[in-house]
């Protein structure tokens, strides 16, 4: 899209400085300025990688979204280390023939970075291929002679992690917001069954970020959850900006009774605190929805609540642009109202709309997180970042499984990246930049 033809100043300023580079369109200038902003580029990079990662979630994830590990054991995050057992002592017990036996007691210990994913094979020599240890059940005896099973890594055995392997069944490898899916039977990494020792009481799995409270791989759930959480933000902002452009343009251009009524509607929506309104709207909708319907419902609720502020902003801009010369010219040349609004007025609000949209996406992501966390949004067995955080609702559970809070870091990362990018865009889309004046000329 190139709007330079609507901006006569663009050519004028450039022709005055003959030594300046050839004229560029406003979008090119925007991109040029944005590229100089390091934080914004970091944000853009994080966002692109997050979206790509989640879209290819099915390929990257070592397990299926609802695949529970065979023994429903909770694993800690393997990237950060693993559990080992340390012998704490012996105690004298009796066996069934009342003969004294020595029972050893163990203590479970978390080893930072020494367990989990490591780079030595079963013989203990260094390799480049990452390996994981299987979990073994250790019988530990307390002072009353009661036995308990401790699950800890058996450091003598290593299972290699294989990359680009075929999987047994066809599963989704690419998904665009869950609406367009490609299936296949290959995945980025995983453990192969034939590598795993066939020994009793030995559990194994590749759980890089640990498992959730039901024993499902958290990393897999995060990838699939990101498909929902991240796309809700994009689709939600798209819908509400569309509504906002339409209603704001209508109110600003026609004024009068339209303006009055639409702006009262905006005030009404803005008068109710956001989350209260979201919860009330959710209450009015049925509970027994399929996962696709739930997704659409969440997007719809967030868009209904969210369009008001953009609508008001666009109305203000259209109101002032309506009296500009080119709008007058378009109207006097016989352009219909719709054509003037769509062809001339709205494109001029584009830069600010894009900046606002970028800055508002986090609110949609957080809205979905809040709804799902409270139990009114995405529900099991689907996955979303808010739903994953729901496991942390009981503080005791969270205390003993602190890795359950990992999805929160991903939410934080996404919001932070959007803020970086939005701030950068706002600086880059400084209205003066559109006249083709570079920063050095202003001083």
């Amino acid at each position, binding site marked *: 899209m190139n709007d330079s033809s609507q901006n006569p100043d663009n050519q004028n300023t450039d022709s005055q400085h003959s030594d300046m580079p050839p004229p560029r369109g406003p979008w090119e200038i925007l991109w040029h300025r944005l590229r100089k902003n390091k934080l914004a580029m970091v944000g853009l990079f994080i966002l692109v990688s997050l979206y790509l990662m989640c879209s290819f979630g099915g390929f990257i994830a070592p397990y299926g979204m609802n695949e529970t590990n065979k023994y429903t054991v909770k694993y800690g995050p393997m990237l950060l280390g693993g559990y080992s057992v340390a012998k704490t002592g012996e105690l004298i017990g009796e066996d069934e023939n009342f003969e004294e036996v020595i029972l050893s007691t163990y203590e479970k210990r978390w080893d930072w970075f020494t367990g989990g994913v490591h780079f030595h094979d079963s013989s203990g020599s260094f390799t480049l291929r990452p390996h994981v240890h299987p979990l073994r059940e250790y019988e530990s005896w307390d002072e009353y002679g009661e036995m308990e099973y401790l699950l800890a890594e058996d450091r003598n055995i290593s299972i290699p992690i294989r990359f680009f392997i075929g999987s047994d069944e066809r599963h989704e490898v690419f998904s665009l917001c869950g609406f367009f899916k490609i299936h296949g039977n290959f995945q980025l990494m995983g453990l192969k069954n034939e590598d795993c020792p066939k020994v009793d009481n030995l559990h194994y799995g590749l759980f890089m970020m640990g498992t959730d409270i039901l024993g499902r791989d958290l990393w897999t759930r995060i990838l699939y959850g990101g498909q929902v959480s991240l796309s809700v933000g994009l689709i939600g902002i798209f819908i509400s900006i569309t509504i906002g452009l339409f209603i704001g343009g209508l109110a600003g251009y026609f004024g009068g009774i339209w303006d009055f009524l639409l702006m009262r509607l905006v*005030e*009404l929506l803005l*008068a*109710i*605190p*956001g*989350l*209260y*309104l979201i*919860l*009330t*709207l*959710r*209450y*009015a*909708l*049925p*509970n027994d929805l399929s996962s696709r319907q739930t997704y659409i419902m969440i997007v719809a609720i967030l868009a209904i609540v969210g369009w008001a502020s953009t609508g008001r902003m666009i109305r203000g801009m259209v109101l002032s642009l309506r009296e500009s010369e080119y709008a007058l010219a378009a109207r006097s040349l016989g352009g219909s109202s719709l054509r003037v609004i769509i062809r001339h007025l709205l494109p001029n609000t584009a830069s600010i709309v894009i900046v606002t949209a970028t800055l508002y996406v*986090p609110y949609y992501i*957080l809205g979905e*997180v*809040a709804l799902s*966390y*409270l*139990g*009114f949004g995405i529900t099991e067995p689907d996955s979303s970042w*808010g739903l994953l*955080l729901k496991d*942390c*609702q009981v*503080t*005791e559970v*969270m*205390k003993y499984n*602190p890795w359950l*809070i990992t999805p*929160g*870091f991903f*939410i*934080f990362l996404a*919001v*932070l990246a959007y*803020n*970086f990018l939005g701030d950068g865009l706002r600086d880059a889309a400084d209205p003066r930049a559109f006249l083709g004046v570079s920063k050095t000329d202003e001083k």
Partner: protein
Amino acid sequence: MLTFSLRRLLSIPPLVLVVSLLTFLLLKQAPGDFYSQMEADPARSTTEVLRQKENAGLLIRLNRSELVALGTFSDQGHEWKFEDTGEYRPQILKDGTVVNAKEASRSLLKFNINSANYQCDDEAVVYRKVGAIEGFFSWLVNAMTLDFGISYKFNRPVFGIIKERLLNTLTLSIAALLIAYGLGIPLGVFAAVKPNSRLDHSAGIIAFLGLSIPTVFFALLAMLFASYTGLFPIGDMRSLDYDTFGFWGKISDRAHHLILPALVLGTSSMAGYMRQARGNMIEALSQDYVRTARAKGVSNNGVLFKHAFRNAVNPLVTLFGYSLASLLSGSLLVEIVMNWPGLGRLIFEAISAKDEPLVLASVLISTLLLVFGNLIADLLLAVVDPRVRLS
């Protein structure tokens, strides 16, 4: 000024009216209500449930003349009619033959005539379902006298519950606001005095992180911190043995419980204030009057705190009203995650329990708070800054 405040004040009642009407209709529209589970429960008699619904104002019992006025109607293939014979209750005619109440109630359960819904209990007492608009107006008349009905879940007047919870939410919000002002403004001002210093950069990072960190996540991190270190209590407003404490013990116990939620809630406003204070201060320091003051020989501190600081911070103070409004919305999640018994948790509990009077009243009260907060902010801004003209 006066006309502006009057006009704004006058615009509030219609707004609140429309908000409550829309909320009421939304709630009525919702599938199932608090009593639908009770009605499905075979252990409860229909009579009992319908009596409760009548007390809650959802049903109206038909009296003798209204029963007769129903005329002949059909329900599930049978013709029904109530006929006044002067006995203690009207006779029930099923397909023209007289039946007793027990038998009638067995086949006559729910029926509608002219889109009005009727329900019949075990003793053939007929109730009419109150329509949405009708229900709203009776609610409105009561609400004028601050009677918001009886909560289904708590079985207490809604107003009492809300009053108590509102106080808690305001305590939390004001504490958060104090933290936001108390940390945000000094940090922002010091960052502005030495731009590009280490303090400025770290303040900028704190501001970015504070604005970006999701409330749910931050609150969970705070709970994790509290449960690992034991420095702070996990949730709730006061200890279990609160009543045994002395006066100061009570105050310190409350403060101890308040710190963490207030910090979590205040962080994002703090970051906002910090940024704004920095921006305003930098602008103020570049003004002519600062240069004049410096030229006159005013000490550096004098310039900073007497001339620049006041001008930079004044507009921030007026943001009080807006912040209160945004804190109200933000406190919902903090209250739920950190188990603080405030208005936000109340509406969550009410929605989970399908407690309609409570949902309605909390939406209404929170809307009122927000609208008045915005009004106060606008007025304060006009009072402090003579450049802002309200007309």
